[in-house]
């Protein structure tokens, strides 16, 4: 008789310890997961806040070199920017350009430096156009010009 009371208490105790352990483990895993995601999000936000650039051309005088129009992109942010046709998407009048029709030189710009975006002249007819370039972390700039 004594065994059944003490035994049942022991069983309840062990069971509650096991349940508490499982719940605590699950919460720890979820907390770690959230913490990792927040950290990642913070890094992305920081990158976005530190990244800024501007198209600085004279809108009425877009230089033409060979078969490419030249657009000057100035890094006005705090971090260096990789300027390649993988890190930047280019739109003319809302149409996404094929990667083969533009390139940058140089391919890295530090604060206050300027890189040149070369866009194939076949992509731009004469008249007014809107250029939109989307860079790392989704930062973008728009520029209306006339050729």
């Amino acid at each position, binding site marked *: 008789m004594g065994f059944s009371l003490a035994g049942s208490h022991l069983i309840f105790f062990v069971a509650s310890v096991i349940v508490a352990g499982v719940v605590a483990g699950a919460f720890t895993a979820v907390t770690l997961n959230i913490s990792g995601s927040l950290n990642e999000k913070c890094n992305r936000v920081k990158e976005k806040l530190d990244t*800024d650039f*501007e198209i600085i*051309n*004279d809108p009425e*005088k877009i230089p033409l070199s060979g078969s490419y129009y030249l657009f*000057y992109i100035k890094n*006005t942010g*705090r971090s260096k920017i990789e300027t390649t046709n993988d890190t930047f998407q280019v739109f003319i009048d809302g149409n996404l350009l094929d990667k083969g029709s533009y390139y940058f030189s140089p391919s890295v710009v530090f604060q*206050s430096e*300027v890189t040149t975006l070369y866009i194939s002249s076949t992509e731009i007819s004469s008249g007014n156009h809107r250029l939109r370039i989307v860079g790392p972390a989704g930062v973008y700039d728009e520029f209306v010009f006339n050729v």
Partner: protein
Amino acid sequence: MERRMVERLNTDIDVINISKTSGTTYNISIKVKNTGSTELDVGDFTIIVNGVIESYSADREYLYPLDIVNITVTNLTYTGTIRVKVVTGNGIEDYGSYTA
């Protein structure tokens, strides 16, 4: 970001005069006044003449509020009314023009 925004809001420049030397190949002298309230690194400026970035020299390294820098661009051959754009390191800009 906030510091950069404040700096941009406090930055302003004015192209107050552009003069040129005589001849078919000439130099221009651009006087730029700091009309904002932040100091500017003249080495970070970008000078665009007739749509093209040109290299330049300046008579001072930093441009403090209300001060004027004299920027010289050499060996130009453009003719007609030529537009000049001056852009600071943080992207603030102003235009001027001259006739050659």
